[in-house]
């Protein structure tokens, strides 16, 4: 019951923080002597280390950030450290945030700016066991469905509305055990994560019915790179250097998957989270599919498409989560100009 590693024991956290700071200070001190030109910058991913962020770890480990003139400090994300909040508080200069989360923040007055839309396709999905008689969206009528909170409910709610099904919502925790033990009929999953966890708990893919929200006109692009307006105004060069270096890191990771996975596993072991190579391999493969969806090209990586932006804005507004859709010109900044320069 008392999963201490997930509880983020406060004392441990403080000590880890102190240690990280100390190491960071020592490292920057050391780096300061040799390469004084590097700009210090802090980045936080929105979750604990995993292949979802392989590109950033690769850019860091392979010295791509340094090559772009940056000294990036990689913060450790997690359930109790929402990246948007750290960005807002100024504890991080740059953050990875979901588009829907960022839109809500912007709408509520937090002046963050999207500088790159890394994940183009939503990997949020609903999975159900075929054995429970669920094959079409309509079959969900009256069923117990596990849903995560907050932003993870926007797409399901619109989905159920679209098919006019009334479901019994069961709050879903961090595990899929309730679903595995048939405590719910359907459960939320990220394609790159929980879906594979279910497969690796002995359920075969052909025993599952999968509903990808992106297949039902509800594609919400997910992870994007965000900075505060202030940061961007002060040093757009550093921000765009980070964006370009990160995308380069992603391309390197796609070209060297096993090496990239090794780096991710290293971060996972350091963070004391369960590390499973095949799971991370799956995650890297699927994340590649949603960063460069079929039909997309590497050159188009990181661009926020207007129709995606408008779709997410519309759904959020209809869901009552935002009053009005912010102007995309103010919300999104493209580094393309800086690339050419």
């Amino acid at each position: 019951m008392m999963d201490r590693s997930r509880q983020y024991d406060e004392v441990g956290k403080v000590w880890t923080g102190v240690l990280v700071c100390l190491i960071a200070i020592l490292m920057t001190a050391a780096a300061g002597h040799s390469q004084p030109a590097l700009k210090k910058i802090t980045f936080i991913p929105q979750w604990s280390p995993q292949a979802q962020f392989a590109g950033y770890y690769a850019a860091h480990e392979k010295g791509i950030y340094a090559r772009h003139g940056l000294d990036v400090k990689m913060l450790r994300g997690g359930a109790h450290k929402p990246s948007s909040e750290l960005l807002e508080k100024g504890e991080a200069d740059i953050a990875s945030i979901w588009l829907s989360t960022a839109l809500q923040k912007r709408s509520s007055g937090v002046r963050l700016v999207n500088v790159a839309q890394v994940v183009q396709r939503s990997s949020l999905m609903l999975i159900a066991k075929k054995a429970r008689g669920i094959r079409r969206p309509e079959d969900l009528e009256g069923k117990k469905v596990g849903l995560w909170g907050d932003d993870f409910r926007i797409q399901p709610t619109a989905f159920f509305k679209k098919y006019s099904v009334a479901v019994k919502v069961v709050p879903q925790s961090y595990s899929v055990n309730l679903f595995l033990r048939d405590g719910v009929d359907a459960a939320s999953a990220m394609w790159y994560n929980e879906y594979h966890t279910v497969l690796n708990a002995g359920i075969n893919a052909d025993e599952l019915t999968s509903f990808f929200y992106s297949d039902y006109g509800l594609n919400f692009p997910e992870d994007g790179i965000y900075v505060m307006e202030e940061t961007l105004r002060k040093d757009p060069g550093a921000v765009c250097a980070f964006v370009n270096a990160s995308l380069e890191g992603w391309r390197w990771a796609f070209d060297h998957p096993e090496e990239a996975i090794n780096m991710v596993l290293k971060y996972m072991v350091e963070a004391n989270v369960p590390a499973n190579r095949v799971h991370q391999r799956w995650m890297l493969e699927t994340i590649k599919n949603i960063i460069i969806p079929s039909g997309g090209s590497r050159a188009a990586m990181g661009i926020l498409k207007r129709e995606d932006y408008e779709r997410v804005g519309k759904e959020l507004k209809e869901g009552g989560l935002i009053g009005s859709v912010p102007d995309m010109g103010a919300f999104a900044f493209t580094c393309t100009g800086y690339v050419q320069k």
Partner: protein
Amino acid sequence: MFKNKGIAFKLVLFFTLSSAAIFAAIFSYNYLVSRRMIQKGIEENSANLITTTTSRIEVLLTSTQKVPQNTAYLLENTNYDEAELFKVIYAIVEKNPEIYGAAVAFEPYAFDRTKKYFAPYFYRNGEGISFKYLDRFYDYFHWDWYQIPRELEQPQWTEPYFGEGGGILMSSYAVPFYRVVDGTRRLTGVVVVDISLEELRKIVSSIRILKSGYGFLISKNGTFVTHPIKELIMNETIFSVAEERKDPMLRDTGRRMIRGETGYSAGSVKSAVTGKNCIMTYVPIKSNGWSLGVLFPHDELMADITNLNHVVLALGIGGLMLLALAVVFIARSITRPLTEMADIAGRIGTGDLEAHVPEVRTRDEVGKLASALDCMKTSLKDYIREITDTTAARQRMESELKIARNIQMGILPKEFPPFPDRTDFDIHALTVPAREVGGDFYDFFLIDREHLCIVIGDASGKGIPAALFMAFTKTLIKARASADIETGVLMGEVNDELSKGNPADMFITVFCAILNTATGELRYTNGGHNPPVIIRHAGNLSYLDGPGELVVGIMDGTQYTTRTLTLNPGDGLFLYTDGVTEAMNAAGEIFSTDRLKDVLATCAGGDVSGITACVGGAINDFCKDAPQYDDITMMAVRYDGPGDGNG
């Protein structure tokens, strides 16, 4: 394929191959049967071990289960206040050393209408027991230990997790409890206890199979709970390992395990520790739906039998080699003399009879063959020596015979016409000697100017004796002949001479005549010879008949008659030996006196040499190439009458 190979090679090949085949069949059967026996033995032993292990785990789990179950029962059926509740929870932790912590977590506002979160939790902390409330920060409603029994409405063991400090693996048993409110049974909360899985780990890790076999435990999700390799615990599931190894069989086995089945893996499973192939067996832990897997290293199971098989294999191969050697030896002992004998037979074939036949002491077929070959060689040698001797003797004899014939021929008059100055008669003789020396002879000589003696004869037998007998007779007649002697007397005298000292009982037929060339009177005596033919000038022919008299030389004192005949000028006489009338053709017919007469009739008109040539030609035509065994001798005489003057 092996046509050109020797017997030894074939023997070795076929004996060794067939023995190897038999050996392989026996070996395989033995291997399979002993393998099955060992496997069966291991299965029985492992069944005991596994049953003991699972029952120890079951005891551990069920004894733990009873505590929250009893508590839930108590909470459902009694009324209690906060102090009493605390006492109960504290007691659970204090009285049960295997329990690490215990809590009673209530549904929102179920214990206290003002409190959404109410969950007192006692837990071991070093030597003592600590307390805390699980609060809104922890948000227990969304944790598996609370949510799963709540939704399933039945007690549940949670998936394992790392407890305080991350070191100790734990699992919780949670029991939902209910209260009847307003006639409906409603969930009040969940009683939960945490236990360390250390004891369970010890039980499972005590499983030692042979050298490197081990046991492991997986949870309901296939997650490794215990495993000799620490990194696998909690990080991997049996399915992620199957994915990493690309082993669908292992995945399938894992699915059977989490379904609570008992059995063996369909194929061999690689040991995570040694990488060896193992047989895996699995049994469910019924209390919490986990599964115990046990790996039996294949090669270790089979170590004894493998050793045995190595020895058997070595013995078999050694035996086969010995067999091959023995076959080589036997084959050599057969083929070496055979090869030698073949060699020797070849040499004998080319005439080398001095070749030495190898001595074979055995009495088998080879021995027989050798002695037969030796016998053949000896016989051949003897035979060839005999043939050589005979040939030499024969050659000598033939050369002697040739000389004898030459002598015989030499004593016969050969110049024709013999008396070129005489016109009153003419003589021509022809003799065709047979292959061997025959006994035919003829002679003619003038006794005085008016008397011509004519003789033809045929000695009995052949060869030298006949030739000598004939020569002797000729000489006697020539010596005794005189102008006025009666031919009968002459023949009697010759007979008497020949009869004396004739132990071999040889005889001779002789026709002897004396022609008075002046008168044409012919006195003659026929001693058993073929009657000559008289050719009258007119053309009529007749055999000179008269009673046959005894052959000459056989009986002393025989009296011979002298007969007389008168030849007119132009008349002739044809004399011959039995070689003429008895000349035989290929069909076995003889020339005969009749045919002779017919031939003479056609050619009597010519001169004497023409007559003999004519008869000789007729005989040749008749006999063609058939070989003749007797001399063919003929003589023609024509009386032309007294010439003018001395003629």
